[in-house]
């Protein structure tokens, strides 16, 4: 039996120690708590709520609850019976009285084109309906589209409380009314192109940044401090300069009548009538993004290279390695940490880029973020926008998780 060690106030030492540690844990947590709660409530929860919009259809479901319930027994193989049509009639009547039939029309139009005019026309004629006669016939009398079973199928589908169809749209697939999943017609396939282009640009920009950053980070790390500090300005000044300033400088340079083309023409490399198309395409997006993201690669690489002792390379060469061999076997592996930190940072920033592609990229150089913004602000198809956002977010979080595994979030450094 071990002797019981007690503190001066007579408590067991182990108990006292636990108390102190618990108090310290609480203090530490309480310090982080205000920001944690702020970020969780003002940021994390709103993101999940927004992403919920991609599958949420509760509002529509609440407008036509009973129709939706009655339609559950209808298998959709033949025209709906009077139970469905009469319920729909009464619920549409309520909708017209409370003036939300416009919302129903807009929402159903996403399921099948032509619903906007169909609902509007039907709503106007609703007061002429004879509530004792056959409803389906009267619907068809108002508009012949009600005789098309697909509109009833769309109505059934459009009133589900939630759905996952926007995720199919995100990858250019659609669900037919018979439940089969098919790719959409080729000329409408835009989203997959954008996803592939986004990945291509993100990977390409990361790779270019790596290729360009490696030599200069090395130079910065081996030069005496007073020279490297001066050269560091070339990296830090763009880093601290507004993104829009840097984007506009690329617009000035890359335009058809821009500085770069002017210079090439005046030097005689390019004829005046065949000026290079550097902007409003992928080239522009690519060049501008590489320059803008380059500092994010240089800084982590530099901070790692700074810690590598030059004597390691000297030792390798003195033992007979050629400079190239010594670099490949000794120096390069030592910079892995910096390479992964920089690459992941650049990749994550590039995959969600919005401003530069929108200004420099034109129609051919936009990325998935621009498409999300388009659906958020212009087409107002929020469920599609949020479905795309969810996919993008998952991609980013996977990379973020990798970053955490490889580099560790505590080791993130800025400037």
């Amino acid at each position, binding site marked *: 039996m071990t002797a019981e060690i007690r503190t001066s106030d007579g408590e067991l030492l182990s108990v006292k120690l636990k108390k102190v540690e618990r108090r310290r844990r609480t203090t*530490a947590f309480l310090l982080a708590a205000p920001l944690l709660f702020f970020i969780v409530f003002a940021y994390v929860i709103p993101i999940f709520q927004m992403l919920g919009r991609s599958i949420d259809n509760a509002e529509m479901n609440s407008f036509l609850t009973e129709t939706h319930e009655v339609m559950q027994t209808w298998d959709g193989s033949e025209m709906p019976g009077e139970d469905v049509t009469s319920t729909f009639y009464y619920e549409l009547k309520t909708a017209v009285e409370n003036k939300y039939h416009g919302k129903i029309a807009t929402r159903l139009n996403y399921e099948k084109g032509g619903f906007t005019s169909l609902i509007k026309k039907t709503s106007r004629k609703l007061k002429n309906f004879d509530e004792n006669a056959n409803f389906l016939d009267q619907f068809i009398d108002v508009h012949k589209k009600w005789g098309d079973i697909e509109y009833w199928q769309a109505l059934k589908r459009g009133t589900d409380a939630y759905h996952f169809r926007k995720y199919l749209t995100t990858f250019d697939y659609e669900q037919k009314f018979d439940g089969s999943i098919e790719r959409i017609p080729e000329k409408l396939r835009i989203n997959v192109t954008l996803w592939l282009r986004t990945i291509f640009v993100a990977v390409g920009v990361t790779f270019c940044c790596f290729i360009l950053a490696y030599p200069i980070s090395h*130079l910065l790390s081996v030069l005496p401090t007073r020279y490297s500090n001066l050269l560091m*300005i*070339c990296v830090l000044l763009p880093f601290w300069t507004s993104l829009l300033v840097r984007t506009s400088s690329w617009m000035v340079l890359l335009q058809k009548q821009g500085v770069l083309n002017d210079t090439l023409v005046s030097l005689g490399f390019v004829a005046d009538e065949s000026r290079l198309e550097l902007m409003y395409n992928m080239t522009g997006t690519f060049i501008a993004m590489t320059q803008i993201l380059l500092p994010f690669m240089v800084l982590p690489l530099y901070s790692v290279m700074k810690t590598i002792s030059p004597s390691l390379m000297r030792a390798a060469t003195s033992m007979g390695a050629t400079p190239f061999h010594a670099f490949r076997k000794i120096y390069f592996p030592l910079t892995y940490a910096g390479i992964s930190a920089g690459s992941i940072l650049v990749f994550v920033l590039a995959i969600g880029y*919005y401003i530069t592609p929108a200004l420099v990229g034109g129609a051919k150089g936009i990325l998935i973020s621009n498409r999300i913004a388009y659906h958020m602000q212009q087409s107002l198809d929020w469920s599609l926008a949020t479905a795309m956002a969810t996919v993008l977010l998952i991609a980013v979080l996977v990379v973020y998780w990798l970053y955490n595994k490889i580099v560790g*979030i505590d080791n993130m450094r800025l400037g």
Partner: protein
Amino acid sequence: MALPKYTEMRYRVWHYSYLVICTAVFVFLIAPLFVIIPLSFNAEQYIHFSDGMLALQPEAFSLRWYEDMIYGTKNPWGIAARNSVYYAFFSTIGATVLGTVAALGLSSRYMPYKQLIMSVLISPMIIPLIISGSAIFFSLAKLGLAATFPGIVIAHIILGTPFVVITVTATLSGFDDSITRAASSLGSTPTNTFFKITLPLITPGIISGALFAFVTSFDEIVVILFVAGGDRNLTTIPLQMWTGLREQLSPTIMAVATCLIVLSTLILIVTELLRRRSERIRGISAQ
């Protein structure tokens, strides 16, 4: 970087081509910024180097676009600048206070779920701005704060805190705990120790974090596109530039950009001074 005399020819060639490559990359990084500055003094309305400018004739240069920026009625740069400074000022205070306090907790050895909490706190920096922007907009709209001054400040605080957390935690990670223990053993209360010992030592980190938060807010464009909701009285410099750039590249924008480059140069100088001071007081020689 001089090569020893005995260096073989092929290594000499390799060495000089390496220096040429490095120079090219440095030019690629910095040159685009310097193209803007002379163009902002252009006397003409077009964004290119006129023959007069290339010949350095004085009449080819003018300050008319700076006059247009300050007195021009078409572009409300005045309101934009005032708003930008206000948003940046208030969100910097919010982000710095919240971020510094959180960083103090996070650097403690006893912090529970450190990795997880840190990841959550850093997430606004990692998650694409388009997602942050729309999510913050929807939540602010629900509270009736969209397109209001407090709403924009809240949005910018969210975006600024990760930078403060990162810089202050980095400063604290090099912090020698024995100093505070020495203070306590000499009879100092924890509060006294914090204000007399810890705070002065981590001040450079806090200021540099605050600078990051300031610049983040001052340059922020994606989130404000959603949150400001097109209200002209809430516009900021980046928002105004964005609108301008979408229509046409005007020399006035070049003038504004030049002012912003001057501002970033100032920030760069301040951060450099801070870094040196931080190294000095922590006993790391500046070489």
